[in-house]
């Protein structure tokens, strides 16, 4: 973002000085000064407000600015230096929920759990830092615990993957046609081997 550090705008209530404080106060003051000089008499008798979009201006700095603005005939309404309240950035949710079918060539990689409400087709890849749950047929490649969490699981309504990976372990289904599972199944690591079991509530 290359927004300017200091922007001066005319508004209905007078002049707005919009600050984005990315450097020391000296620079900001000089920039404002430069703009005031360019304006000449234009600002005389006006009212100014300060809008701080980034960073913070101290009381002392406010006073310095006030003095400087006065020299150019601007009255700083310092009763309310306006701060914009930044939107709180919500932390990334731990689980990504995907309501679609992943098709060949599509790849989902997520730093948490992944839930797919749909199928995962052959040729597609789901990679998760945590668990992978598929509410549909998992026929592609799934890698749970991609950053090494051996407790991660892969569960699917129909677990028929091309290949399964949990943490650093890779497994592929046996050669030949294997029967389509009739129940939801869970794959997890046991003694360094990926085992698949029917999913029961314990």
């Amino acid at each position: 973002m290359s927004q300017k550090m200091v922007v001066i705008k005319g508004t209905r209530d007078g002049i707005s000085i919009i600050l984005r404080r990315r450097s020391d106060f000296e620079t900001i003051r000089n920039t404002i000064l430069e703009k005031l000089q360019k304006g000449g008499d234009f600002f005389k008798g006006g009212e100014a407000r300060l809008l701080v979009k980034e960073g913070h201006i101290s009381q002392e700095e406010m006073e310095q600015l006030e003095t400087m603005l006065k020299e150019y005939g601007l009255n700083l309404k310092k009763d309310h230096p306006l701060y914009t309240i930044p939107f709180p950035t919500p932390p990334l949710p731990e689980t990504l929920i995907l309501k679609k079918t992943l098709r060949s060539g599509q790849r989902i990689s997520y730093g948490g759990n992944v839930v797919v409400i749909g199928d995962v087709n052959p040729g597609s890849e789901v990679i998760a830092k945590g668990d992978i749950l598929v509410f549909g047929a998992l026929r592609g490649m799934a890698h749970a615990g991609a950053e090494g969490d051996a407790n991660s699981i892969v569960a699917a309504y129909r677990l028929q993957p091309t290949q399964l990976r949990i943490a650093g372990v890779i497994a592929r289904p046996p050669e030949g046609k294997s029967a389509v599972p009739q129940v939801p199944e869970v794959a997890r690591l046991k003694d360094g081997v990926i085992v698949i079991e029917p999913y029961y509530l314990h």
Partner: protein
Amino acid sequence: MGQVIVITSGKGGVGKTTTTANIGTGLALLKHRKVVMIDADIGLRNLDVVMGLENRIVYDLVDVVQGVCRLKQALIRDKRFENLYLLPAAQTKDKTAVSPEQMKNLCDQLKEEFDYVLVDCPAGIEQGFKNAIAGAEKAIIVTTPEVSAVRDADRVIGLLEAAGFEEPQLIINRIRPDMVKRGDMMDIDDIIDILAIDLLGVIPEDERIVISTNRGEPAVADESSKAGQAYRNVTRRLEGENVPLMSLDVEPTLMERIKMLFGLRARK
């Protein structure tokens, strides 16, 4: 030092991948050559499926090129023939993930160790094609007896000649002798007339190809498949043997046999 052969066609769906799989398997099976097949169709890989090796893929061509893994780690040994290997394409990337220079480098490395490096080219004449031909010194063109496929083959031959390839060889795939006989399909001579390159083989239409492709077992190893026989012949010709084109005559139908019996229609 081995040789690098690219299998290309221009048009899609004419049998490049099937041909690559069958020639690769044929060379390993009949001639005990050390063969590696490269799937250059990044983003639309198929060769692994046709070879039945999809579930063994851990690393792919793009990983090798980007230095994520060593070349040896990405090579998948075939499940039947131990001197046959596959370097699979990446499925979640696209053709721009690799440059022609990188492909050439890769082919140069592989031909140090293998007798044959077969590159399965993607359809089209854009980046994927340029990548696939970059490291190759020989080319096999696959076409079917259709005007559109032959037109594309002609275009590709032109591009190959411009790129310095000498004498590309032709495989005519999916020919149906019964249709040729009726005059409903271009025959071999028509195609050779237009393309004017050496014929490496003619592969008859064979439903066993569909079965073998779906099973992941190339037809060349299937003694009862006519297309398999044709691919075995292609393999021998590649190795310099002089094998005549197999007879593609169709069995006469019952009606024709009766007519022949009465001398109404002489057998040609």
